[in-house]
């Protein structure tokens, strides 16, 4: 945990070396700073001004550090409480609402800084009658909810630099096809072990290519082995996972040979149809229609899954949520406790998930296509590592490390 506060220094802070001195004092005390704003005076008489966010290990150290900085002329920036306005209508935010990022956020209420409970980007902040603050997506705001307006009384904390063993440290760039994969997989496995040891959950987001490349059994093994705690996917992944178990093909392509059998292109439709006949994937498992695979293991081991629908879906499977807003809410409900997200050969659901996750969840994006990986990891300041490789090989190797 760390504490931070904004200070400003004003005057001839450049020529007088006061700015340099203040920054040195912060670092020498073991703290850190982010320069928020610097305005340099135009003439030699005009003062310059700098605003810094100062961070220390805890409130007490921060207090001592700020006192020392005040000796050199740095002052706490005067803070005000956040302004709120009641929403007039369900699902419509007041004009000028504060729009969130996925970073840890605090709101000042009656002079105290309150942590936002569930950081998520592109939402509004709603204050409860007990003085708690949550992010709320536009469609979930109710008439009368106090919504935070503007920027006063809201502060965002930059993420601490990752410490200790972390794959991010050894790679200069975040995405490249030219990195030793064996090492990367080993590091990801280590991070997963570490997360699970500290009570964190692992979320897997899977695209259909996971099944096409033959990685289904490895993912199923990871679910069975208790490594994967939550699954997000779409109709395609679930369908081809079931198809591979029931008919031995994925989108009609036998997973053991190269040539598609005749009529194979309709295999997935037949499978979807049979699951629809039974009413749900769980029912299809219960009556023995599905006897293995990822969805099977999820049902058998009570691993929650959310299947989000899309306009191109065939069927869809009965468990697929065709109302995408409802699908996103279902995904939100499974996020608390997630420490690691594995995005496996998915674009649509990976981006949707990335939009919901708070910054600070370690995210590993695996795809054969560098552009997809770049798109997923290029999402702002949170911790994402891109790995350009065949997802089949990746997941098999990962399973070997972990099981």
């Amino acid at each position, binding site marked *: 945990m760390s504490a931070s506060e904004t200070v400003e220094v004003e*005057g*001839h802070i450049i*020529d007088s*070396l*006061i700015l340099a001195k203040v920054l040195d004092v912060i670092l020498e005390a073991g703290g850190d700073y982010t320069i928020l704003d610097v305005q340099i005076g135009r003439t*030699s*008489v005009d*003062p310059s001004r700098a605003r810094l966010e100062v961070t220390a290990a805890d409130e007490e150290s921060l207090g001592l550090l700020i006192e020392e900085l005040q*000796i050199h*002329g740095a002052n706490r920036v005067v803070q005000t409480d956040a302004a709120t306005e009641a929403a007039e209508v369900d699902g419509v935010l007041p004009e000028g609402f504060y729009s969130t990022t996925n970073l840890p956020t605090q709101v000042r209420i009656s002079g105290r800084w309150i942590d936002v409970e569930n950081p998520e980007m592109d939402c509004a902040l709603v204050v409860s009658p007990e003085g708690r603050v949550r992010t709320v997506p536009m469609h979930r705001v109710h008439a009368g909810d106090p919504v935070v307006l503007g920027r006063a009384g809201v502060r965002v904390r930059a993420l601490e630099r990752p410490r200790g063993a972390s794959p991010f440290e050894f790679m200069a760039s975040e995405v490249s096809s030219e990195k030793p994969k064996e090492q990367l997989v080993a590091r990801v496995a280590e991070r997963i072990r570490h997360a699970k040891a500290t009570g964190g959950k692992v979320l897997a987001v899977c695209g259909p290519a996971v099944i096409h490349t033959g990685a289904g059994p490895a993912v199923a093994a990871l679910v069975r082995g208790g490594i994967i705690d939550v699954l997000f996917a779409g109709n395609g992944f679930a369908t081809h996972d079931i198809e591979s178990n029931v008919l031995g093909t994925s989108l009609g392509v036998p997973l053991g040979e190269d040539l598609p059998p005749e009529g194979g292109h309709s295999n997935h439709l037949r499978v979807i149809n049979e699951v629809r006949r039974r009413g749900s994937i769980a029912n299809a498992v219960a009556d023995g229609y599905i006897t293995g695979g990822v969805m099977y293991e999820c049902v058998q081991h009570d691993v929650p899954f959310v299947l989000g629908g899309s306009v191109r879906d065939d069927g869809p499977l009965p468990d697929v949520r065709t109302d995408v807003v409802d699908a996103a809410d279902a995904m939100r409900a499974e996020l608390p406790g997630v420490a690691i997200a594995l995005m496996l050969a998915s674009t649509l659901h990976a981006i949707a998930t990335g939009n919901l996750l708070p910054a600070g969840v370690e995210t590993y994006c695996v795809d054969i296509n560098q552009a997809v990986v770049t798109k997923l990891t290029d999402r702002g300041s949170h911790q994402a590592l891109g790995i350009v490789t065949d997802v089949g090989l990746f997941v098999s190797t990962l399973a070997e490390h972990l099981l």
Partner: protein
Amino acid sequence: MSAPRTGLSWGRRFLMCPPDYFGVLYEINPWMRKEVPVDLDRARDQWGELVATLVGAGAEVELLEPQPGLPDLVFTANAGTVNHGRYVASRFRHPDRQPEVAHDVAWFTEHGFDVAHLPEGTRHEGAGDALPFRGVFLAGYKSRSDAAAHAPLSALLGAPVRPIELVDGRLYHLDLTFCPLDDRRALVAPQAWDAYGRRVVEALVPEPFVLEDDEMLAFCANSVVVGTTVVMPACPPRVGRQLEAWGFDVAVVGVEEFLKAGGGCRCLTLALDVALGPSGPGIGGTAALVAPPPSTGTAAAH
């Protein structure tokens, strides 16, 4: 340099206060000891000689009326800071000196200065902690004055202010460690400052004369310069040789009675004719004598 050197562009008009009620009645700096008595007659003689020396060197001296119960009123250097006829009143750290301000403000108001005040809660002890050099005020902080005062001070004076952190408790005002001699030279005691302060002064002063510890502790930096005459509480031979080599005349005025309160020659004076930077709107006032800005040509010294 072939062009004749001009003396300091300011320092020909001073405010001083007779020591009728001077004494060491409290202890607010490491030099003060209540049990050491002040010889008031000797103090008057020494003060009188300082006035005579300054006038003899070409300065005008104006007087502030002394007040019973305010022994440190004699140290007019701390009454405030002056620039272009604007007087910024001091805010003293110690309650013992705070009552002086009302008398200082009254004098400046009566004499046509534009009176300004620093924000409440910021402390600054006047010209003792703000000395002009090459277009900027060097301002001491930590012992008595606050760094937080520098930004408002700069705004009120209309000139840049560069902070210097004072790190030796015995040298509790900047004017015990820095003495501007002209637009290129100064007496400096960098051992009284922190590393950043030293770099700032190094960058600012083309020809500093660095005082050794014993010279510094003899209050050599607490001198008053009138044109090319340096009026000093003491002048060790090494210092004297350099000043004479530079073309200054040295006049030593013993002020031992005042050293008992931690103040030397400079502390007993406040220059009223400082004029740094352009006198823009908001900096005004009707100061009777304002020295012309330094020129490269004519020698104004005598």
